[in-house]
């Protein structure tokens, strides 16, 4: 039986690897997800045959409750709510790892009646793995819940500063590690284990609280990675290769996405983790010194419709504003109408547009926009000079030309979409307010820029109607 179970774990691991491989192409992605789900099913089935699993009532209750909650969440969540959904799921994965580590600790602790009368022997590697699982799992759990709260609007999306932020966090982290060494040397120090758990949970809150809304793509990716690494450390606790493999795959995936997001903002991981864009530059002062003077030209829906009626190519740049206004369907209608009129329409997606990696792509997929119309930044940036009209919908910092030339700008060096090279740039925004980086966007004052004010959904719907009436 032992060999059968281990072989099943091996097959399950292989299914995970193929699953992630197939997730790499839109054509095979659904199959990949299915393979991974089958792998998970096999792993669960194999575990239930383990000789240490002797009672099933709690398992059945847990599986039913968990599956029910998971199904409801997955069916109900709107596509715009996907970042918080993924954030929350990360948290549950991390939380489960921390709980398993606690359960294992109590299992081998002779003060609790599982293996009565044995001296408490905790091998160094297992002890260290338990502590790391508690630390990483705990941070992932509360950190993800804070990220969820920020994305859902329950916790402020602003950069939160508190006194002695960095020394405090460093102290807490060192405290956990010191406590961990103590526990490995004195395994019966149950109170220290509980204290480590508590501090790890606290650390998750303190680490994610300072991270601002637009930095969420980095935070979510990083927490994704942590949830995987927590799975791996749990694998070390249990001595189970499949957990180690699956956790490492997810950990690697999260790290890669994190680095892609950081590159998209031209910031180091440390800079994001330590909190806040404003802290990178000189904050409020920078916004005044870089303030651009000049005239802003506005355009209304009727004029804009007439302009669009006679163009050859349009590129749409969506941002978080499109998600907030739930404007993806309205945008799709506009695109369909423009295409009917013979206009070539494409989308340019900045890597950090929205609140999680690939956020815009999911929204546009929901609105049934064909994915081959969506272009990554590096694939479309050279085409802007030959584009007639660019429509920026709810994006700001990622199209600010100051990133290219203004060395004093906090976003200097960040790769941007060069929309200002197009013949005309239409910027749909609710107001002239600054974006996340807290700086004015000089693009709004360019001679080829036209502001089209209004909520994205209303404004685009109005534009489509005007265009229909022409």
């Amino acid at each position, binding site marked *: 039986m032992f060999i059968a179970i281990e072989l099943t774990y091996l097959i399950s691991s292989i299914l995970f690897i193929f699953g992630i491989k197939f997730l790499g192409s839109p054509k095979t992605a659904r199959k990949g997800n299915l393979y991974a789900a089958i792998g998970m099913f096999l792993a669960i089935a194999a575990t239930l045959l383990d000789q*240490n699993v002797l009672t099933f009532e709690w398992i059945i209750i847990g599986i039913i409750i968990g599956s029910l909650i998971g199904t409801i969440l997955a069916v109900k969540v709107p596509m715009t709510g996907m970042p918080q959904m993924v954030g929350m799921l990360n948290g549950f994965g991390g939380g489960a790892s921390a709980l398993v580590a606690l359960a294992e600790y109590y299992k081998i602790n002779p003060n609790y009646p599982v293996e009565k009368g044995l001296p408490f022997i905790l091998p160094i590697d297992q002890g260290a793995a338990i502590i790391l699982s508690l630390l990483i799992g705990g941070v992932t759990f509360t950190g993800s819940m804070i990220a969820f709260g920020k994305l859902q609007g329950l916790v402020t999306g602003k950069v939160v500063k508190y006194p002695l932020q960095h020394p405090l966090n460093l102290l807490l982290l060192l405290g956990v590690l010191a406590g961990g060494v103590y526990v490995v040397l004195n395994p019966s120090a149950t109170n220290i284990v509980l204290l480590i758990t508590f501090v790890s949970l606290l650390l998750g809150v303190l680490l994610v609280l300072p991270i601002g809304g637009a930095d969420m793509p980095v935070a979510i990716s990083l927490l994704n990675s942590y949830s995987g690494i927590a799975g791996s450390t749990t694998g070390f606790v249990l001595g189970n290769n499949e957990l180690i493999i699956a956790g490492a*795959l997810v950990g690697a995936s999260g790290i890669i996405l994190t680095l892609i997001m950081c590159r998209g903002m031209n910031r180091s991981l440390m800079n994001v983790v330590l909190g806040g864009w404003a802290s990178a530059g000189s904050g409020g002062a920078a916004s005044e010194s870089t303030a651009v003077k000049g005239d802003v030209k506005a355009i209304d829906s009727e004029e804009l419709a007439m302009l669009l009626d006679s163009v050859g190519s349009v590129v749409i740049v969506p941002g978080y504003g499109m998600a907030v206004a739930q404007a993806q369907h309205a945008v799709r209608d506009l695109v369909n109408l423009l295409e009917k009129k013979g206009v070539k329409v494409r989308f340019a997606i900045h890597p950090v547009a929205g609140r999680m990696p690939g956020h815009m792509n999911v929204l546009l997929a929901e609105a049934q926009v064909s994915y081959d119309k969506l272009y990554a930044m590096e694939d479309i940036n050279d085409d802007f000079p030959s584009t007639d009209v660019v429509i920026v919908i709810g994006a700001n910092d990622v199209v600010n030309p100051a990133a290219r030339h203004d060395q004093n700008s906090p976003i200097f060096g960040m790769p941007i979409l060069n929309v200002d090279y197009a013949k005309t740039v239409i910027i749909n925004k609710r107001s002239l307010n600054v974006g996340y980086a807290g700086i004015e966007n000089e693009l709004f004052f360019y001679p080829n820029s036209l502001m089209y004010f209004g909520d994205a959904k209303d404004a685009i719907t109005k534009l489509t109607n005007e265009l229909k009436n022409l």
Partner: protein
Amino acid sequence: MVEFISTHLGTFVFLMHVYVFILAIFVGFELITKVPPTLHTPLMSGSNAISGITIVGALLSAGLKEFTISTIFGLVAVIFAMINVVGGFLVTDRMLKMFKKK
């Protein structure tokens, strides 16, 4: 030799796990660097569901012969991990269904 292995068995097993961990990280890097940006969100939710593999450890604790404090931790862990697994795979499938080329 047999004696040497049996006294150091724990170390051997631990080192084998370290090998597996490091090689799996390399596999992960190889697989993920090829994923196009369009699929980043489903990749994240799908891989997230895979990290629910901790369910294995949760089941081992929730299914103990006697009811102990570990059973309670195990039960909550089963619930958490199942939310992660079921929610993750279902929501990923829901998203991927929408990715179409016309």
